[in-house]
């Protein structure tokens, strides 16, 4: 079985904290993004697009056997890496788990401060989109 949301995040935090240098951390992030399964071209539509980010972001969500499926993509590598981490933590959970999750890894890895400009706040919008979906399912 998949680790719970908390331990999964702890692992992520540990692996980022293990790296001294920001370049290495971004390297890890970008690599995570590269491991995402390809996002189908036909899903790059308005319906799946998230507006308000500096890069293009698409998220497609669904429910299978009572658990959330999430696939996502971005044309920016770092955003894509963050999406990969979010999927790692949140996909395959029950909507309730996702709705109630406390996503501490974003702050604790330090990825958050740089990825949530208070105005264009892409990451916050992404997380809100996922949570809203979870709540309504």
């Amino acid at each position, binding site marked *: 079985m998949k680790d719970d949301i908390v331990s999964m995040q702890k692992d992520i935090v540990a692996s980022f904290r293990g790296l001294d240098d920001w370049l290495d951390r971004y390297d890890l992030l970008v690599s995570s993004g590269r491991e995402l399964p390809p996002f189908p071209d036909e899903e790059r539509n308005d319906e799946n697009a998230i507006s308000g980010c500096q890069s293009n972001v698409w998220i497609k969500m669904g429910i299978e056997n009572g658990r959330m499926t999430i696939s996502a993509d971005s044309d920016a590598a770092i955003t894509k890496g963050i999406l990969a981490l979010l999927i790692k933590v949140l996909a395959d959970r029950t909507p309730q788990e996702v709705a109630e999750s406390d996503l501490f890894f974003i702050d604790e890895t330090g990825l958050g401060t*740089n990825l949530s*400009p208070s105005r264009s706040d892409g990451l916050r919008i992404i997380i809100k989109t996922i949570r809203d979906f979870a709540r309504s399912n």
Partner: protein
Amino acid sequence: MLDVARIREDFPILASEVNERPLVYFDNSATSQKPQVVIDALVEFYSRKNSNIHRGVHHLSEVASGEYEASRTKVSQYINASRPEEIVFTNSTTGSINLLADSLSRSYLREGDEIIVTEAEHHSNLVPWQMACERSKAKIRMLPMEDDGSLSVERLKGMIGERTRLLTVSHVSNVLGIVNPVEEIGALASANDVMYVVDAAQSIPHLPIDVNRIGCDFLAFSGHKVLAESGIGVLYGRHDRLLDLPPSQGGGGMVNKVTMERTTYADPPLRFEAGTPNISGALSLAVALDYMSDIGLRDIIEHEEMLTAHMREGLERFEGLQLYGTADPRVPLFSFNIDGIHHYDLGLVLDKMGVAVRTGTHCAEPLMERYGVKGSVRASLAFYNTIEEIDVFFESLEKAVVLLG
């Protein structure tokens, strides 16, 4: 109880001398003085955090954007707005009211609609509505004040009719100092489905402001009158009202998508914040409001009530003195004339005694007209003023009268 001596130490300018006498600053309604924490915040911002906001991804831009938005949140909490997005940063009360009046003149107001304003309004809450009426062909109707300077809700009720679409009133007049019954008026506006706009420029430094209790659709004030920098103002707008409001100014930061042919606009509040805003001004306002809260409005009010009573007593005893606006409740702000003496002469002589008051029409000419005078002296106090300063004020006033009488 307020430890005024301690508080005065927070305001460097209060230790000044003017014409070799200790400054007695009784011109607080024109602008407030600034505590050291506000000055320090400016230094800190420009020495360590300065950046533009708007979609910057670098560290300083994050910091500045974060503090700017945190200031918005702080302001929203201070006036009990429902959410930060209800706070639009402008450059002043005047800027807020112009934004609103201009925007309404192209969306909400129609030919023949009526706007009710009071006789006691500051030009900044009158002229923008006159302009909006010119643009939309709506009409202004004036609610006269009662002889004691108060507003009659009964009289107002009688004025509201079919075509009344908007009602605006200052929470506290900058000439009379009287606190208007804004909650009662709010209930009346809401019962008649009239848009309700409150000018809180003179109440924000003295009273708790709760937009929900007031029941207003919009409320405006300036930072510089409540311990913050000049050049920053606030327009509060109820969320649904703001959503309906078209932008008044265009530029960077307020758009959604721009092409040569067509532009779509961002959601509130950004829709109304075209261009680089006064970032340090917004920060200074948050610090100023924190300072007010730290002292505590309860203690501030208690102290100001004492100042008000002492001023009132002295003014009433003063021979030949006409006080404009005698109703209660009030803030420590008093306008008056002395028989046979020009207000300008009084202002000049008081200044030579170290006492700073304002003279003239106070940007409220219709009100001066009502009293049949060309101007008046206005002494306006803040929580950092003292009973001793009031005594100096009266001694100086007496000397001035001997000299000029």
